[in-house]
């Protein structure tokens, strides 16, 4: 039997084809992530409200991560004749009745490859301020997120209370 050989040109072609298929969507998504860095993603279009013009401003945070892998290999696999003998059915038996090059009970050389990838990401946006332009001039009005501040307050309070409680009962446990 002839030993399985992998032509380097074929292998490079296979890797290139698999890489292109998996990397292309990744690159496209990366480009979209980098679009977040533009000024347009932070400042929205101005809105006319009476005599005032309002420009909303927001903070945008986007994160993405990917992983791709490509593999190509060569090896031996059981010949068709063997597969029939192992019970593939009578219909297949007729099709594979002719002896193959490798012969019955022999293994044939083969080349295979594949690739895959995965990833995830998220984009957060939060209003920060509004720019108001009126007859009196231009003002920047902050947008206060009371929920976030309340959460931060209770987190800080909880940390201090738990720290105080731990300090109070700490020595008694050690004794």
């Amino acid at each position, binding site marked *: 039997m002839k030993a399985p050989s992998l032509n380097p040109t074929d292998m490079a072609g296979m890797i290139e084809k698999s890489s292109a298929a998996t990397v292309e969507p990744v690159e496209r998504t990366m480009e979209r992530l980098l679009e977040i860095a533009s*000024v347009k993603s*932070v400042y929205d279009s101005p809105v006319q409200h009476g005599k005032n013009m309002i420009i909303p401003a927001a*903070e945008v*945070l986007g*994160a993405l991560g*990917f992983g791709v892998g490509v593999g190509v290999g060569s090896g031996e696999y059981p010949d068709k004749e063997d597969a029939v003998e192992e019970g593939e059915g009578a219909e297949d038996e007729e099709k594979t009745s002719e002896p193959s090059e490798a012969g019955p009970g022999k293994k044939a050389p083969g080349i295979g490859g594949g690739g895959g990838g995965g990833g995830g990401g998220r984009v957060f946006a939060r209003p920060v301020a509004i720019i108001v332009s009126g007859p009196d001039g*231009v003002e920047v009005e902050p947008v206060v997120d009371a929920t976030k501040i309340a959460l*931060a307050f209770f987190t*800080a309070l909880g940390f201090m209370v738990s720290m105080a409680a731990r300090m109070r009962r700490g020595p008694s446990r050690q004794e």
Partner: protein
Amino acid sequence: MPFITIETQPGETIQAGRNKITPFSQAIKLILPGSRGGLVWNRPVSVLVQGADGGEQVLPVVDVTRIAQLVLFGIGLVGGVLFWLVKRR
């Protein structure tokens, strides 16, 4: 492409009555080697206001929520350390 980039960029100038407003944003880009992912944080920093008389004024965009959050976390941390120091004595 560098691993981390920080850039402040101006947006399009908007005509608002007699004033011209140019917004500025600051983007922090963190790109993993091999373009395997990254992080982009973009926030408004200031607006440049040009009046009809030619006067210019820079108004900072202050993130009150972020400042309040940081102050509260700082108070929590300092409070915790103070409890620990008082108890140690």
